[in-house]
């Protein structure tokens, strides 16, 4: 059986944008996960939500995988982008939309004020 680390590597390699979160995009179960969901929805990005509450092995494995102690965790093209703080900071500065553009990820580019 492939280790959880291999399974996680496969998950982020085979999906452009992956959000490991508590709950689902339709029903986030944590304020921090919900904030990232709202940001991704606002940018109209297609992403795969992985509910870590449904699988304890994923919940702990992903923290080791990224050397990041908390959930949510956002991955773009296999690369760990950040947790809630960093994603919100990047969104507010416009860096997140730029990053998606650079990675060839279809998104709604908010009007620059």
């Amino acid at each position, binding site marked *: 059986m492939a280790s959880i680390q291999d399974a996680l590597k496969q998950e982020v390699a085979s999906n452009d944008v992956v959000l490991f979160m508590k709950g689902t995009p339709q029903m986030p179960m944590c304020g921090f996960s919900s904030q990232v969901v709202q940001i991704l929805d606002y940018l109209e990005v297609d992403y795969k939500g992985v509910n870590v509450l449904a699988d304890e092995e994923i919940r702990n494995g992903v923290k080791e995988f990224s050397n*990041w102690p*908390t959930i949510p965790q956002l991955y773009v093209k296999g690369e760990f*982008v*950040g947790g809630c*703080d*960093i994603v919100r*900071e*990047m969104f507010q500065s416009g860096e997140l939309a730029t990053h998606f553009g650079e990675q060839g990820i279809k998104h709604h580019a908010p009007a620059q004020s």
Partner: protein
Amino acid sequence: MAMQAVEIERLIKAALPDAEVEIKDLAGDGDHYSANVVSAAFRGKSRVQQHQIVYAALKGQMGGALHALALQTSVPAVS
């Protein structure tokens, strides 16, 4: 089990002696803090790397005793 703000500050400063650390208790429950950390150790590092340095300083408390730490990291302004 929660953490005290002074303990968080002590752990961060033990790992980053030059750090300026400002901690705010967001909920009064010892579980939800915000921390603004300024240190030269962050220079040239990505945001993720900067935050990982702070999490390492907290010696595994992050995500355990410490449920939420809204983190802001920056390098000192060049004087």
